[in-house]
């Protein structure tokens, strides 16, 4: 009977060796196999860099300022007032609690040569008055915060029926990875750059065409999510003319970082002129180069996704009818220049890896023709 233990030991030992060796062999083979297969799938011709973009990440004529501390609308001013109140209360509590902690650490540290050192300190089990006090005081603070919060929610957050009479409606539609802005009252569609009149309430109807995004222009308003098959109502009123920047704030996949928003606030006249021009169909220029470019645009897949009023009506990608009225493109990522358009059409994946626009492998000549056409779309 004494033998039984050692026999089973040997069997177990052998089993373990077999298990370990098999794991290693299978693992190495598997890794090798995957390496080979992966290599085959990814083996493509290297992309020839014929055009290079310039000034990526530059916002023409605008300073990047997205601080929530510099509100430029009544709504964000309301939010900031509340934020400062909460911040002040938090700082107060911070000072008191950390102060008590630091004081207690210094005051009650064990000192060398303390005659009391051999005895344990007084064992205090608790104190009802003190414990009630530090329960009731926070309750009062919480009550104050609650009331202030609810008041600000009431002021800032609109519900569906609360659209102001004189408001301008803009449908904000999040796409991967660009923004579509539609003005149903003005028959205007644009992308990434939101033009609004100053001192007029803007009624935003925010939704999404694919995954969840979030519309965030910090100086003008807090963020509001763009959710597919669901409309959120949001309201903001710009107080000053100028350019305000923002970006998508809900992770929406690969190029979440390059889904920027540019808000141009114009005076009433300027906005009217802009809207009038945007409502027109695309300009038709009749020169040989431009005609060739238009042919290239219609011949390849461009027209499947992009719309140009009077020519084609794709809805998947930004409307190009007035492309050249915008100062940036590619989700607001790069300045809208001829050189950048060429580089972009040559290979969008070089500039914005993972975006949904494919490199169509046009020849250099075709790229030059199609860009010659695009720059006429004023």
């Amino acid at each position, binding site marked *: 009977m004494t033998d039984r233990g050692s026999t089973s030991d040997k069997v177990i030992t052998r089993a373990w060796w077999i298990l370990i060796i098999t794991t290693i062999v299978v693992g190495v083979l598997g890794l090798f196999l*995957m390496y080979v297969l992966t290599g085959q799938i*990814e083996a493509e011709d290297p992309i020839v860099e014929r055009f290079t973009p310039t000034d990526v990440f530059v916002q023409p004529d605008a300073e990047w300022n997205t601080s929530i501390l510099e509100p430029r609308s009544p709504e964000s001013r309301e939010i900031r007032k509340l934020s400062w109140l909460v911040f002040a209360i938090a700082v107060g509590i911070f000072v008191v609690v950390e102060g008590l*902690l630091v004081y207690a650490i210094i005051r*009650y540290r064990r000192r060398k040569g303390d005659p009391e050192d051999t005895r344990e300190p007084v064992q*205090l089990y608790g104190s009802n008055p*003190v414990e009630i006090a530090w329960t009731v005081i926070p309750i009062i603070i919480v009550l104050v*915060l609650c009331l202030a919060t609810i008041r600000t929610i009431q002021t800032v957050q609109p519900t569906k029926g609360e659209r102001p009479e004189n408001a301008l409606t803009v449908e904000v539609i999040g796409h991967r990875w660009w923004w579509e802005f539609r003005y149903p009252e003005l028959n205007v569609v644009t992308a990434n750059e939101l033009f609004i009149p100053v001192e007029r309430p803007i009624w935003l109807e925010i939704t999404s065409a694919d995954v969840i995004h979030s519309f965030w222009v910090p100086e003008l308003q807090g963020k509001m999510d763009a959710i597919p098959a669901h409309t959120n*109502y949001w309201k903001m009123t710009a107080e000053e003319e100028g350019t305000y920047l923002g970006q998508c704030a*809900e992770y*929406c996949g690969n190029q979440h970082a390059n889904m920027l928003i540019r808000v141009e606030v114009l005076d009433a006249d300027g906005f009217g002129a802009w809207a009038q021009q945007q409502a027109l169909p695309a300009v038709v220029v009749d020169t040989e180069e431009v005609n060739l470019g238009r042919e290239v645009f219609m011949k390849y897949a461009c027209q499947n996704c992009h719309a140009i009023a009077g020519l084609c009506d794709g809805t998947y990608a930004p409307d190009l009818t007035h492309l050249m009225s915008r100062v940036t493109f590619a989700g607001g990522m790069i300045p809208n220049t001829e050189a950048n358009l060429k580089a972009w059409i040559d290979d969008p994946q070089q500039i914005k890896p993972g975006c949904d626009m494919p490199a169509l492998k046009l020849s250099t000549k075709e790229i030059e023709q199609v860009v010659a056409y695009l720059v006429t779309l004023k």
Partner: protein
Amino acid sequence: MTVLPKPTSASLPATPHGILERVHDWVTTCDHKKLGLLYIFSGLFFFLIGGIEAGIMRWQLAQPANDVVGPVTFNQMFTMHGTTMVFLVGMPVLLGFGNYLIPLMIGTRDMAFPRLNAWGFWMFLFGGLLLYFSFIGSSGLFGTQGAPDVGWFAYAPLTSRTFNRGNNVDYWILGILVSGFGSMATGINLVVTILCLRCKGMTLMRMPIMVWSMLVTGFLVMIALPVLTAAQVMLLFDRFLGSHFFNPQLDGSALLWQHLFWFFGHPEVYILIIPAFGFISEIVPVFSRKVIFGYTMMVIALVWIAFQSMSVWAHHMFAVGLDPSLNAFFAASTFLIAIPTGIKVFNWLGTIWGGRLSFHTPMLYALGFIGMFVIGGLTGIMLATVPFDWDVSDSYFVVGHFHYVLFGGTIFAIFGAVFYWFPKMTGRMLSETLGKWQFWILLIGMNLTFGPMHISGILGMPRRIYTYAPDRGLDIWNLLSSVGYLVQFIAILIFGWNVIHSLLKGRKAGPDPWDAWTLEWATTSPPSDWNFNPLPSVKSRRPLWDAKHPEDPDYEYE
């Protein structure tokens, strides 16, 4: 007269010899102490991996328009970092300490279901490995992109087949699903063990706060995790069987996922912090040489937090456009949970007050925990203010906030616990000198990393962006965060060296190196297979105080 044979943990000889026998012993063990150590060790291993993933992100973000990694890799890094730290570091390490310590603290031989316990651990480990297998398993073969890249809360419909054609989301679902079963088993085990196996004399109100916190955590795990599991199964149905729970194009709801996820997710946050409260409530009294202040209120606060934690989930969703009255409700509910949390902090201060503090490493971490957790708690109150949340939700402010809670809170508490109970677990002391160096470097490093994140958030930097434009005023704050990461990394290296060195050459600890009061210090270090012989009986919350001061026992005052 019959003589019972001496019980052993397996059919193998009691002391295994030879490397394979030892491996076999650890793999087949049902001993709560070995499983506890396995949990903690695997958790710390994943901590290292999650930390490296964080490093890749900080490297990429150290400069604007950087190109260390591309968007795909970056998105995988923050997804895996979050998932790893929550599911494969926080939970297993905390539950591991529970596993190791609860039977010792309540004076029993093992957990109520030892084999379920082992099953739970292996489910967790293989769930974690399955998730990590996505790095190689998911790439190439089906034309997909490696590890999951949908964020740790994997919002629908980004996870649908339409937007994620590969199978990396399936790895995310299944890895977490499998390890979730393990956590549920451990949760049930903790609850049953604590309710049924306490030694003679240990009433519920004589249990150490740590045991209370594990009881509450066990209940939270049992309530919260099945919700996640159910949601993940629904998502699997969406992806494979053509159902459309979360598909808005076919009348499903994208928001349903958020409700389900955060109904799990917020209790989960408390699953990650309540055991940490337990550690601190053990360490602070011992190194203050005082009984815990306001024991009853501490227990009430724990149970209060647990209940309340299930009514605050939509504060993660203030920006999704809920009805104003719902926003107000969840804001109020979130403010309210600050009260029991405040009570706990004040009670720790009350324990320190009038004590005689000695600053051994566990105490440093406990005090660091209180200091940092207060900051995280206060920014939490700020975020509960709905309009402020519209400004900074999903920005780096939130990232800074929860890292103060989960790093300054949970991770500090875990380091405190490691330093405090390492002698019990291994029989050797960790080096105090190295421990203090590590503490101060880590404290500086974490503040350097996570402090500036609040400012980047206020300046308008959304979370999860792989790049940002120069001249936005973000450069310096991001650079500081990245430098802070390096500082923290040094601290972690010191810790690793400390553990290895002390395991081999550390000072012998003896059964009770800290002159503490709870039952685990009444047995040898490390404890024998069956913990106590004979089983102890207690008359108060501090049985070892009674033994050390027979003239002045606790039970005359409680």
